């Protein structure tokens, strides 16, 4: 292996920009790191080159550990994004720089320099200054300079990013040829998918500092493992269907799944992916030779060069939910993106508003990510309650559980965790027990850095733990379940929608969880006196209806209620009157520069209902003001 990264982590201001990344790049391999800006790809290159020190993990280049070596000793060729040519030197001196540092004799240096300028197609330009060259030429000088002293590996940081499209294509071919000729292991960083697909032997997709998935371009495009990669690469049609022994059921069709996907899902649902080119269109059902999804209406037609692109709207299919392309909140129809060749388009012309039968040649089943819970326990009575309820819900939802023990010391903590482990033990997808001597918020932050959790469960007293709850919400992108006292598994959930919150995602998460609990849901909207006009009531009704439809797609029976008055008081009376045992509230996003505050409606409601388990769902809405 030319490049091996083991659990590499780099933090800036405590925030991980490279998060537990492990990777192996083979000899002579062209590896592309693909991700949007800020996903940590450039930092990985800097870590390998030694320009920034790693916080954790190891780096091996050709089986030589270099984690703690100075950059000068790593034998890494680095091409920077803006090329970083030495402006005060000629092109020739730039290329020779690495050799002159190594005291290579002048004659040999000149020979090597001429070879490299020849290789990158710049022979004869050695006497120019960098700023006398075009962008593309500068890029090639940077490449020649990086290769001149024969480094062990080559790292390229968006080297073609600043160039225009035509030159880029040409340089891409050159680069690939040179890399093949030299057989040097290469990591190439880009945010450009086309570039990645064109160049890569294998691609690694990065998001928020994590290496999400690694595979050949074909594997990642046709058979991605995660929803993120499926929707990040190209255009994706993503649906959720039922997993059965015969395959995935989408509508009345069963799509066979490959054997390695058999144990994907414990909740009987699976995400299926099909690409626009996998979609078949026909004027009549009878002449369609692939499994049919139904008859759709053409919403949009456009021409993208070699292909015709269509967006189609299918009516609702029972038991099927659409993820991508996204549909409007409350709508249960399904959008499908399709492409056709000009010949197909000529044979069966379609215009906006036309009807067509839609089928799919081929689908791919993704590993449906199960839920993951994080439970905090310090051995107190209320954390006992959190442990009970969190464990019970995790069992029902087939969720993985991480338990963090904190607060107590030594033996007491160990025996408490022993008891907790025994209690939780059976029926969980996975149980991991951690102890932490840190503040609970910090421990949670650390845990979610390592692995994303959907729900953090905390034993809660509204007088003492409000600040802790705020800190836990701030610690990551998860929902929060506050458990004030021991209670049975919830059977009636009250989802409070405060002026448009929780948003769609949050209702969906609450719905996903509530379905596992087999509980009923009521969507409540409270109109404040200032907003209690006729049209706002109508709007609230429409919004609630949309929510009910979304929940019923998930299999959660739901009702609606509208009250008017002061929000916390109305929530309190509704919860008391309907004897609800789970409350779902939305909390605004972290404001830029500030923390989350639960002082508003959420905090007051927690105070008024001190004995009901409350789920604070993160909202994607910004807090007003």
């Amino acid at each position, binding site marked *: 292996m030319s490049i091996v990264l083991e659990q590499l982590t780099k933090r800036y201001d405590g925030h991980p920009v490279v998060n537990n990344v492990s990777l192996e790049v083979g000899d002579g391999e062209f590896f592309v790191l693909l991700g949007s800006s800020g996903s940590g790809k450039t930092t990985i290159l800097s870590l390998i080159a030694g*320009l920034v020190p790693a916080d954790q993990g190891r780096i091996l280049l050709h089986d030589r550990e270099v984690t703690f070596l100075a950059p*000068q000793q790593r034998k890494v060729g*680095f091409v*920077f994004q803006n090329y970083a040519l*030495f402006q005060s030197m000629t092109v020739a001196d730039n290329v020779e*720089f*690495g050799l002159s540092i*190594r005291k290579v004799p002048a004659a040999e240096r000149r020979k090597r320099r001429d070879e490299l300028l020849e290789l990158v197609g710049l022979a004869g330009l050695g006497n120019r200054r960098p*700023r006398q060259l075009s962008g593309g030429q500068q890029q090639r000088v940077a490449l020649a300079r990086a290769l001149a002293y024969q480094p062990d590996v080559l790292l390229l940081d968006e080297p073609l990013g600043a160039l225009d499209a035509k030159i880029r294509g040409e340089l891409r071919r050159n680069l690939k040829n040179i890399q093949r000729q030299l057989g040097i292991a290469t990591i190439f960083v880009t945010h450009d998918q086309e570039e990645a697909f064109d160049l890569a032997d294998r691609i690694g997709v990065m998001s928020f500092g994590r290496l999400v998935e690694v595979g050949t371009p074909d594997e990642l495009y046709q058979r991605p493992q995660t929803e993120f990669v499926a929707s990040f690469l190209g255009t994706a049609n993503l649906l959720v269907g039922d997993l059965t022994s015969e395959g995935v059921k989408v509508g009345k069709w069963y799509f066979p799944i490959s054997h390695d996907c058999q144990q994907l899902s414990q909740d009987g649902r699976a995400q299926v992916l099909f690409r626009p080119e996998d979609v078949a269109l026909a004027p009549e059902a009878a002449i369609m030779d692939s499994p049919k999804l139904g008859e759709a209406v053409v919403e949009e037609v456009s021409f993208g060069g070699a292909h015709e692109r269509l967006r189609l709207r299918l009516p609702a299919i029972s038991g099927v939910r659409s993820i991508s392309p996204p549909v409007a909140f409350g709508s249960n129809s399904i959008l499908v993106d399709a492409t056709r060749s000009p010949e197909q388009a000529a044979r069966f012309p379609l215009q906006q508003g036309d009807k067509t039968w839609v089928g799919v040649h081929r689908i791919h089943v993704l590993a449906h990510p199960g839920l993951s819970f994080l439970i905090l326990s310090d051995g107190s009575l209320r954390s006992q309650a959190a442990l009970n309820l969190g464990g019970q819900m995790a069992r029902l939802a087939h969720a993985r559980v991480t338990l963090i023990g904190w607060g107590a010391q030594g033996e007491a903590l160990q025996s408490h965790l022993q008891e907790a482990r025994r209690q939780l033990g059976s029926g969980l997808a996975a149980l991991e027990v951690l102890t932490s001597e840190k503040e609970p918020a910090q421990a949670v932050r650390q845990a979610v850095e390592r692995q994303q959790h959907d729900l953090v469960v905390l034993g809660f007293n509204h007088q003492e733990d409000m600040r802790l709850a705020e800190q836990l919400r701030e610690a990551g992108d998860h929902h929060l379940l506050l458990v004030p006292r021991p209670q049975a598994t919830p059977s009636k959930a009250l989802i409070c929608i405060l002026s448009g919150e929780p948003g769609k995602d949050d209702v969906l998460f609450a719905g996903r969880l509530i379905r596992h609990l087999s509980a009923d849901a009521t969507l409540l909207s409270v109109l404040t006196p200032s907003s209690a006009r006729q049209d706002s009531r109508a709007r609230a009704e429409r919004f609630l209806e949309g929510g009910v439809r979304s929940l019923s797609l998930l299999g959660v029976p739901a009702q609606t209620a509208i009250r008017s008055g002061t929000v916390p008081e109305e929530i309190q009376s509704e919860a008391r009157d309907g004897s609800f045992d789970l409350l779902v509230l939305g909390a605004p996003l972290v404001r830029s520069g500030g923390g989350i505050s639960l002082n508003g409606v959420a905090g007051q409601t927690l105070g008024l209902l001190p004995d009901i388990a409350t789920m604070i769902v993160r909202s994607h809405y910004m807090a007003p003001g």
Partner: protein
Amino acid sequence: MKTKTPKQEIGYQSPLGRRGLRGVALVYLTVLLLIPLFVIIQDGLREGLTGLWHQVTLPIAWSALILTLWTAAIMTIINTMMGTLTAYALVRYDFPGKTIINSLVDLPLAIPTLVTGVMLVVLFGPQQALGALLKEQFGISIIFAPPGIIMALLFITFPFVVRTVQPVLLDLDRAQEAAATTLGAGSWTIFRRITLPPLILPMISGALLSFARAIGEFGAVVIVAGNIPLYSQTAAVYVLGEVESENRLGASAVSVVMIAIAFSLMMLVDWLQQRERKGSL
């Protein structure tokens, strides 16, 4: 077909306004700068070049000019090195009080130079502890001697090199240094071959500016130097003496020499800065 360029359209002003503005600027420059310059040059050359040469080569005048030049030269060498170092430290390192130190750099421009002289006398004067110590232990006198002049000039011209080097250093592409690191260069090589070359021109401009500023310095020097003819009297102080003893020709002649030096230095600085701008394009 004739077409107007957009620039003319956008920048349009009435011809009267344009001419008026230019006129005001030129008249102002003439009254304030050119006439006095012309008058003094004319005055210095009243008895022709030989008369001027005679006045300048009088032993006291000559010694004052030479003293002025060599103290300024030594100051310039020290100031260029230390100014560059200061700029480097201010740009590249973080340390407590950095913002305050950064604004202190310009202070010498604001402090009356007489005060600067007084400060140095208080610090190094022969009656003061430090001054006495230096005198007794090492036989060095600072005040009323050339070292005092250099000290005063260093203080006064401190901002010039710092403020010409600092912006260039700030603009410098750090990636070039990172690139040199990956190519195997150590920190001294990187400084010498990557960081320093683009700083040379601003360093020279800063040096010339401080040199030009130094040769005309009066306030601080008059207090620090003691004005001992043939030993610690600088050209500017000499000119004052000649004016007071009503030898106007002597005063004008030495002044003309100082103007000539200052003017050629300014031309050089201008040329260097133009070259630097072109270089950075």
